[in-house]
């Protein structure tokens, strides 16, 4: 089985991936984690806005829009 790890921002649509790491400082990441974007969670991309716009993800039963920069700091693993 091939396991590939990549930033969430590079994940393609509708592929399920597992969050393995969230890079960067504490501040906003606390809020990310509270909203269900945490290590070990399964995450899926719902939409990506063009021109480096925000990404909407589905995780833990709800959808959240996050900025592209943030999506680069979330490392996921696709099986």
């Amino acid at each position, binding site marked *: 089985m091939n396991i590939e790890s990549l930033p969430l921002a590079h994940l393609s649509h509708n592929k399920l991936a597992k969050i393995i790491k969230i890079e960067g400082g504490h*501040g*906003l990441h*606390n*809020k*990310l*984690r*509270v*909203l*269900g974007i*945490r290590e070990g969670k399964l995450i899926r991309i*719902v*939409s*990506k*806005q*063009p*021109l*480096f*716009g*925000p990404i*909407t993800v589905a995780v*833990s*039963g*709800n*959808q*959240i*829009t*996050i*900025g*592209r*920069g*943030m999506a680069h700091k979330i490392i996921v693993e696709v099986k």
Partner: protein
Amino acid sequence: MGNPNVGKSVIFSRLTSANVIASNYPGTTVDFSTGKIRIEEDFYEVTDAPGIYSLEPTNKAEEVALKILEKADLIINVVDSTILERNLYLTLELLEKGIPVVIALNLWDETKHLGINIDEKELEKILGVPVVPTVAITGEGIKSLVSRLSEATTNKKYKSKNERERWAIIGSIVSKIQTVEHRHHTFRDTVADATIKPMTGVPLAIVIIFISFWIVRLIGEGLISYILDPFFENIYRPFATALSDLLDPGILHDLIIGRLIDGGIDFTQSLGMLTTGVYVPIGQVLPYIVAFYFILSLLEDTGYLPRLATLADNVFHKLGMHGHGIISVFLSFGCNVSGALSTRILETRKQRFISATLLAIAIPCMAQIAMIFAMFSKLELDLVYPPIAYIFLVFLILLIVYVSVGLILNRFVKGESPEIFLEIPHYRMPHFQTTMKKTWMRILWFLKDAIPWLFFGVFLVNILYAVGIIEWFSYVLQPITEGIFGLPGETSIVFLTGFLRKDLAVGLLLSLPIIFHPMQLVIIATILTIFFPCAATFAVLIKELGIKDTIKSLILMVATSFIVGITLRVILLGI
């Protein structure tokens, strides 16, 4: 207290029968409201707090929530049962604080649609505090919630854990009490996806916004021509005329009825407190307020606005804000006051400053928009194009101003503009009574706010006319209006009144015995929007931004109005 968009405000209004606004997006409540609840013989005070995800605040609204928490004797922790896991994080933090808690498992009906099964009795056993399933919007479970408030307790088991430990505890709780059935892709999911994907979402957004404004205009005009105009002509006119005959000519007659035009009362031109002072807010503005708030309430309650914010984020980020800015813009079209308040949800000073300044500069409120419509339909004009074309031109200019000033501010205002971070709620079918009640509350607010101001405005203008101050001002300001904007000197009174209220300002304009060039009206409508928000909005700006930033904002408004005014004069009037 609870996460954003879980229905705290709906529960609050059920508990206290107080009137508060609730919508289907995070951040509707940015301030707190208090009400009283009677249990048996005693009264208790209940506070509706803004939503928070955890006890670490990230914006001003969340700081408000924490202050409330410090004073609380008992917490009703409202929880969205469709996303139980992340809601329990705050619950756990609250339990650690040692304040007695009762949990309301709200949106209980939604769990059934989503195939989620929660064993609430088991949850109660594990947490050791009362857990009550509720459907706030229909009132289900509220009685039982109230009856169990006395059982509120805290649980000493949970003490000073770090974040990781908390999630571990939550994980083990959720695995014991919740099962999720697999569910097929529903129609609602298809709609949800289509409205947020750029390829389909952007065209849909344009269609939705266009249709919304078209419906507002349709309802507004319909109410005027079928209900309000007949009312004022057939019922109110005889009353006002009788009153006019009763009063002797003189200052009192001038104040109450105003000038007679061709021997009779003219509701727009007479300028009396009981003629124009009543006709402008009720006969002209109210119909559009009703129409606008009905549509806005519908849009809010479905959960569409956060999706719109996602689609608009790209543009708004370039203006120094993020997508949430568009929600403030929408609210401002109703009333700039509520728009300015809603900027609290933005994270940094830079974002709040830009957002509030831009809406004060470029967003006309519904009262003003209604009067702009009236302006082009009531005045005798030499129109080359249909009236809607001129109104469209005003909006186009304001859009250009909004974007240009935003681009400039983003470059020069210091500070950060963090990326968007917004929860997208599930679509919900608006609950008819709730939507109507909300529309009604907003209409009442308008009436309570607008009518005294308009009475005062009409009164003031009449007094100032009588003592000659207006003439003096017109004379002093003439070089500006005539020399700079290419407008008749008398219009300075219109701008002066614009400091107070925009609808009254346009009302005054309608009473001026001048034949305007239609493009002059376009300039007046635009400048009237830009140069100053109304007095009420200005007061809110001071409160939200502080004196220093408000002054900066004010300088920007004045500067923008001069630049735009001169440019428009050259382009539109060719002089």
